[in-house]
């Protein structure tokens, strides 16, 4: 019983992190039809900025994390304009090549700037202890992650379903050409969505540093993980990403707890089964 509760708690927290990092990837891939292998790089950059702000500038966790988040969003806008815009119209393979190239540059930059060692992010005392619920204790960090995940999915829901920007975004995802004909500035939508996705990835990277440790090679190490969430959830679907991230998070955690010597095989077999049953992803459209 205790094991089951721990699995659920850790798995859901892990799933929330996966969701935050992957949702931007899913939306940009659905919107701009770009296979963006560099997306994990934004999570790494968020963590790297935060680590730097805490160690070199001596800021406490919260301002450092806000700084990291903003730095990534500010950086992502010119990157979208200069590096990504030319590849929107290219085929799948040049996109893979270009975004791998961008990933390499990100890794090399962080490697040059902060070295190749682990970039730790020390959590403040208020977040690192355990909270006593009376019948059992829970790591506080997991609760914060859970809360952040709920806020993110709620915020995204309001943004996409209830605002003008959301209407334009959905129109552009459905058919960018038609949306542009109706007077929607799609390149603005692209840039804003890209920055938002990069920011969410950075948030996930910072909050998830305990589960997915940050170092220069982070984007390559976890690339498959994030892409799996997007593929299983269905391209462009926020709900799909959420369900897929939670399912994969819980499944992977359960496999680690219950069958520690089976390794990652369980994760990949689950992915094969899910994609075999639903090739378009859980919520994807044909």
């Amino acid at each position: 019983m205790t094991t089951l509760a721990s699995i659920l708690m850790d798995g859901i927290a892990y799933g929330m992190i996966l969701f935050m990092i992957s949702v931007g990837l899913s939306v940009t891939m659905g919107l701009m039809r770009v296979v963006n292998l560099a997306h994990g790089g934004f999570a790494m950059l968020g963590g790297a900025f935060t680590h730097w702000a805490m160690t070199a500038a001596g800021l406490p966790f919260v301002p450092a994390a806000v700084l990291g988040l903003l730095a990534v969003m500010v950086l992502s806008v010119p990157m979208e304009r200069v590096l990504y815009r030319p590849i929107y119209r290219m085929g799948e393979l040049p996109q893979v090549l270009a975004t791998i190239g961008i990933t390499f540059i990100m890794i090399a930059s962080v490697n040059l700037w902060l070295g190749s060692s682990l970039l730790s992010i020390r959590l403040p005392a208020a977040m690192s202890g355990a909270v006593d619920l009376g019948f059992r204790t829970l790591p506080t960090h997991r609760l914060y992650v859970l809360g952040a995940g709920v806020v993110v999915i709620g915020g995204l829901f309001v943004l996409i379903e209830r605002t003008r920007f959301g209407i334009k975004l959905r129109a552009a995802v459905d058919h960018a050409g038609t949306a542009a004909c109706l007077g929607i500035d799609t390149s603005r939508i692209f840039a804003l969505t890209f920055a938002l996705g990069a920011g969410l990835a950075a948030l996930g990277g910072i909050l998830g540093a305990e589960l997915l440790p940050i170092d220069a090679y982070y984007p390559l190490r976890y690339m498959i993980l994030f892409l799996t969430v997007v593929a299983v959830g269905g391209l462009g679907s926020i709900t799909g990403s959420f369900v897929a991230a939670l399912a994969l998070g819980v499944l992977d955690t359960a496999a680690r707890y219950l069958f520690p010597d089976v390794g990652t095989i369980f994760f990949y077999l689950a992915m094969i089964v899910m994609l075999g049953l639903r090739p378009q992803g859980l919520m994807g459209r044909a």
Partner: protein
Amino acid sequence: MRQILPFAVLAAVAVAAFYIFPYNLAFLTRMTIMMIFVLSLDLVQGVAGIATLGQAAMYGTGAYAAGLFAIHVWPDPLAGLAVGAVAGAAIAFVSGLFLMRAHGLTLLMLTIAVAEVLQEVANKFSDITGGTDGLGGIRMARLLGVWKFDFVGQTGYIYAVCVLFVVMVLLKVVIGSPFGLALRGIQDSQARMRAIGTPVTRRLLASYGLGGAVAGVAGALAAQSTQLVSLGVYSFQLSAEAVIMLILGGTGRLWGALIGAAVFMTVHEVAASVDPFNWLFVIGALVLAVVYAVPQGLMGLPAEVKRWIGRLA
């Protein structure tokens, strides 16, 4: 004549490399093996249009099959190549049965998953495969009963280059055949090919199997020349690097696979030895320069340069 000339150039380059870099034969052999591996990817991805990031599944299976065959059955190199080819084709065929129905991102992810699952399986059965220590103790017999594999790697290099030639000629014939044209047609439009009566899934499966056989040969060669098979033969990195090399050189014309492998591995080797900490900058810049300046890959460079000059004039 136009068909023969590139082969003559390739032969000349291979011979020249042998005499100019006598102390780098191990690296040249690795490069030659990588060329064969990227060729297998060119058939699958460049010609038939099957997007994959898991070609290492076939390479690794060929490597393990050839290594185990040499240790337990018969250390003859050519027999080992045949075993590697059959093993690669078999794994491609079996995984292809469900892979060939997927497309796009789903297909990419499934190909990755196949390679990862195989890597875990190889890791689990460590009493057979050696697990993380690798499969060691591969001793090859003389090539054709005559040439001994020497310490400097002269035999290994010449052997690999000969295999590369055979594979190249074979694939040239295949992609020029009606089968090869059907694959190109499938890449352009599956719907149209289906409409004119081509059994699309069966053709794709055949090309994936053939590509798997070639990848298996590359893996077998690697096992024989390094006398070791490690879990890295199934790594995502290997698959991804092969894709980079292929797109770098230019897809669908086979020569691009060779150029891409040669350029990538040379730049990688030189940059990593000059600056072991920041070489990734050089690789990243190279990759980006090719995508933005010559989207067709290095094979498209002459045409692109002609266009630039034309614009100036």
